[in-house]
């Protein structure tokens, strides 16, 4: 039996039988913890991005200081300094710039195109749906990173371009969820009632299908898309084909610090790796919590 976070009446009808249940009543303790942790991660990402854009409150992340190389974490340097004496904390704050706007670009591409294709394929599953799914299967069956490698060789390795293609490669997933949602929704009574009341097709699609029912799927997929964007950006920067060295990125900080790992100077690569881990874990937990609250079955 699921334990609920807030007080509930003695006789509680089952969730799928109820007409409207407020979101806070649907959340179990586990959901509240996951969503809370996820919101914490989102808030510190936003704070870091704001700080790094405005250049307030932090040391210069590029400032070389040969007096203070390899300082372990202390009160003065919260996360220590690296092999050129640069402050690791301010480099981590600055490193959010590497994925933040490209990641937003990627999730906006994937959700908007996925919504468009999903609605078309859901309304016309026989004709347009088959063509759309054939094209999306082509994108889906090549492993994403090999696709990105080909893009890097053909065009120039700009992070915005790479993230656009990351967005393109996650269109198929969004499309299939939106399509199945639209296919079940269009046979529901209330959509029929809307049509009977003479609402325009645009109003039915955008208000009653997209806004009132597909919002949660899009929110979950956007959260997961941001996590994937961070993972791709850090991996590419680690491999050395993303953000290049003087500009900080969490991936190239791990790559730089791994050379000193075997000397016992573990904080150089461990701290960026832990930051990546906590951020991605927060986004995954946020999406799983939203999934269970909204009763969707969306997978990664």
């Amino acid at each position, binding site marked *: 039996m699921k334990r609920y976070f807030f007080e509930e009446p003695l006789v509680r009808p089952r969730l799928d039988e109820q007409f409207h249940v407020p979101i806070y009543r649907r959340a179990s303790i586990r959901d509240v913890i996951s969503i809370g942790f996820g919101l914490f991660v989102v808030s510190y990402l936003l704070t870091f991005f704001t700080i790094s854009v405005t250049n307030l409150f932090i040391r210069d992340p590029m400032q070389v200081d040969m007096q203070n190389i390899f300082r372990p974490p202390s009160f003065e340097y919260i996360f220590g300094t690296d092999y050129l004496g640069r402050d690791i904390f301010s480099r981590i704050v600055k490193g959010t710039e590497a994925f933040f706007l490209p990641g937003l670009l990627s999730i906006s591409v994937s959700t908007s195109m996925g919504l468009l294709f999903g609605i078309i394929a859901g309304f016309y599953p026989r004709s347009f749906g088959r063509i759309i799914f054939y094209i999306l299967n082509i994108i889906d069956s090549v492993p*994403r990173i090999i696709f990105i490698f080909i893009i890097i060789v*053909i065009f120039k390795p700009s992070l915005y371009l790479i993230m656009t293609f990351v967005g393109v490669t996650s269109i198929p997933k969004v499309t299939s969820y939106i399509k199945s949602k639209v296919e079940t929704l269009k046979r529901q009574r209330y959509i029929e009632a809307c049509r009977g009341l003479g609402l325009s097709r645009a109003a039915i699609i955008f208000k009653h299908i997209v806004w009132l029912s597909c919002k949660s799927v899009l929110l979950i997929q956007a959260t997961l898309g941001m996590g994937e964007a961070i993972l791709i950006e850090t*991996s590419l920067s680690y491999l050395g*084909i993303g953000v290049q060295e003087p500009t900080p990125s969490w991936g190239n900080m791990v790559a730089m610090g791994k050379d000193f790992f075997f000397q016992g100077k573990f904080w150089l690569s461990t701290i960026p790796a832990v930051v*990546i881990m906590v951020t*991605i874990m927060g986004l*995954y937990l946020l999406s*799983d919590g939203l999934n269970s609250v909204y009763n969707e079955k969306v997978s*990664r």
Partner: protein
Amino acid sequence: MPKALGFVLRELFYTLLLILGVTALMYMLFNLMPGTFLGKGSGLKGYVDLIKRLLTLKFGVSPVTGIDIRSLVFPAFKNTVILTVGSLFISVIISVPIGIFSAFRGFKSYSWPFVVLSYILSSIPVFYFGYFVIYIFSRHYGYLPIYRPFVEVQRNPFITYVIPIFVLGLSNDSVSEIVRLVTNELNRVMGTDYVVASKARGENVLVGAMYEGILIPLISIVFSKVPYIIGGAVIVEYVFNWPGMGRLAFQSTLQRDLPVLLVIAFLSILIVRAGMIIKDILLYYISPKEV
């Protein structure tokens, strides 16, 4: 049996269609580049020629390094298949018991550490985890060797394969997802009336509920993870110096060697679609009406 043969044939036909589509996409992209190499030509004739060469496995010579692509790619293909299959196996072995435990006992004090552990494993970056494991096992304790391609493999091929397969199996991001899936499905099945009645009669419900609830979604999600695991294999192969397809793809990216990348994309589609065919056959034997 004719029905099984039918959907295998249908799947093969669809695979062929997909290969045609992917190569058409690559062909269009490659014609933006100057130079002459595999995957380059003019008009429909060049495209038909490219398809012929791919399907008869006559890839020719790489224009950058001058090495025969076939001798370069096929050993790497074998190594990547070993890495992918092994790490899929490890992921399932690790995550299914955690999911069953967490569903059967609820989110209690003795099951939540495992769930948290699954989230940590699936979100830790592979490139850091690899170095960490190398440091712990090879450097600090001296238990296992790091991958050495020539001498050590001939002496003991088993032990050098262990670390990379475990690292990729633990830290590809499917562990926490499989845990969540197994927990949800098992909870759903355990709450149904016939399972409750069977429990009241004193029967052992867990095995039946597992078979009923989680087997079909588990199989379909595990085989749909294959492209992501190949993506993770690129980084694991780079970290462990594993002579596989991902490392080859990375090297040919640095050398701007497009024909090798094209052949690698072709072969990885073959791996992904082979996974799909195996999934369909398994689902057919579990419940014939699903397919």
